């Protein structure tokens, strides 16, 4: 890498560049390899498109160790989260109207739960333990006779903290409560074995693991209890749960991305762990830097740090051309301190200075070293401008 690159992309938790093999497969699909047909049509063009969609579904199912028939295509994880939470809560409303989630969930889950609250459901918002994990005792105490759904994410999109899906799911099964998991940050990056995990509903999206934007899926466990209402009505596609003409080329892209991820999962994880350690070694000696989220149960593709006395928006600009995020990309416009970090007990001052670095398959050690130097330069620059009283305020 040269001394001043145009861009160093370390925001893979926001989105990842599609793998060249994904782009190639999508291009071939759009160019006619899988036809231009509507996969719902019964004629030869439709059957050709349908075959491509089902091959993609099978590839995604193989990554997750499940049957292809358990997967429903969506436009991404946000839609899958909404379909799971709203769909399950509404279908089971006659049995009870209580849900449990965490304060550190992605807005796609939090806002869906908040919408249900406005419709008369009750939601228990569990606080995380100090390092971001769910307190299982608190979960057990939160269950009520009318609890119908628990929604807990797998990997936190800001801190990388990993939740214990097996422990949570077992507690839900014991009480006949559905367990939904937002796995947008883990599918394709961490092993997710749905043949062994007690998860009922699981949301995912392709663009977090080098697939295309605009497509995702919802897993529904093959259990009689695991049923949901659709959010949309129209054609009978996707088991009548998600009607609408399927985007064949996007499904093809997600399928190829899943196949690549399955083949590279362990290698990618080792790569992320090396980069994470290298970056943290470089940053931890800078005065005032703290790591957000625990290290023990954390996805190594994400490193989140705060620093006392430095304002986050200015830090983000001073870091250019390093592309990173302040918390969630989906929350980037609000300018408010991260709700996730505040739930972890960080002060508003430290939470607003948080920077999330996230690595991808193509990230190099040279890029990490550049980002580290740039962070140190940015902090030094801003310390010549910002008053000492800002540090005292922290």
């Amino acid at each position, binding site marked *: 890498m040269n001394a001043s690159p145009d861009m160093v992309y370390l925001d893979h938790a926001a989105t990842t560049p599609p793998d060249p093999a994904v782009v190639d497969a999508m291009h071939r699909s759009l160019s006619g390899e899988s036809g231009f047909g509507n996969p719902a049509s019964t004629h030869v063009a439709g059957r050709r498109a349908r075959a491509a969609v089902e091959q993609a579904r099978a590839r995604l199912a193989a990554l997750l160790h499940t049957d292809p028939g358990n997967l429903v295509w969506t436009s991404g994880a946000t839609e899958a989260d909404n379909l799971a939470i709203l769909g399950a809560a509404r279908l089971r409303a006659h049995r009870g109207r209580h849900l449990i989630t965490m304060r550190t969930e992605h807005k796609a889950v939090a806002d869906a739960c908040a919408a249900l609250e406005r419709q008369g459901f009750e939601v228990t918002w569990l606080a995380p333990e100090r390092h971001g994990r769910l307190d299982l005792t608190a979960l057990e105490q939160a269950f009520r006779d009318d609890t119908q759904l628990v929604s807990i994410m797998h990997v936190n999109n800001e801190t990388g903290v990993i939740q214990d899906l097996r422990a949570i799911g077992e507690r839900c099964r014991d009480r006949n409560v559905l367990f939904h998991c937002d796995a947008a940050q883990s599918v394709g990056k961490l092993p997710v074995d749905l043949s062994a995990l007690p998860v009922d509903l699981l949301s995912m999206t392709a663009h977090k693991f080098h697939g295309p934007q605009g497509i995702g899926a919802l897993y529904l466990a093959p259990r009689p209890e695991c049923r949901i209402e659709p959010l949309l009505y129209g054609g009978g596609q996707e088991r009548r749960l998600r009607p609408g003409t399927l985007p064949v080329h996007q499904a093809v892209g997600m399928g190829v991305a899943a196949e690549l991820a399955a083949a590279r999962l362990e290698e990618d994880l080792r790569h992320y762990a090396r980069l994470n350690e290298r970056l943290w070694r470089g940053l931890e000696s800078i005065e005032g830097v703290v790591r957000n989220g625990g290290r023990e149960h954390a996805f190594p593709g994400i490193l989140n740090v705060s620093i006392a*006395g430095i*304002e986050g*928006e*200015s830090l*983000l*600009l*001073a870091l250019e051309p390093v592309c990173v995020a302040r918390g969630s990309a989906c929350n*980037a416009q609000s*300018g408010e301190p991260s709700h996730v970090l505040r739930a972890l007990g960080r002060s*508003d*001052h430290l939470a*607003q200075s948080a920077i999330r670095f996230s690595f991808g398959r193509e990230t190099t050690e040279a890029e990490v070293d550049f980002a580290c130097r740039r962070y140190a330069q940015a902090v030094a620059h801003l310390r*010549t*401008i*910002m*008053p000492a*009283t*800002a540090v005292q*305020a922290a």
Partner: protein
Amino acid sequence: MDGAYSDEVRRLFADPAHAGDLPPGGSRTASVEVSESAAGCRVRLSASGNAGRLSAVRFRAFGCPHLLAAAEAFCAEVEGQPVTALLARRVPALMERLAVPVEKTGRLLLLEDAAKALARELLEDSSDGTNDTQT
């Protein structure tokens, strides 16, 4: 954030010639610091006066790039002017010049608050010396 900052904001942010503290010594000096709790922003203005003029003006600020750039532009504008120049309304023109989003008006008004307090310090204290005020 693409397109969030004008070229001038980027230039002032990257090279704020008036950031820091006044050089030691010199004539009558004053410093004030103001803050607002909503976004945690702070502005510290320091100036030295000589024969009724602002011979040097410096700032320190905790805030977004727009606030830092505006503080730099503000100091550059008033340096060398009469002390009373601190009392002029400058924020609307600065916001237009730097293309500051309207929702950041509150934090930029910290500059006016600090400037007025600084003018008071410099105008009311007729004797030579140093004043330091926090609000």
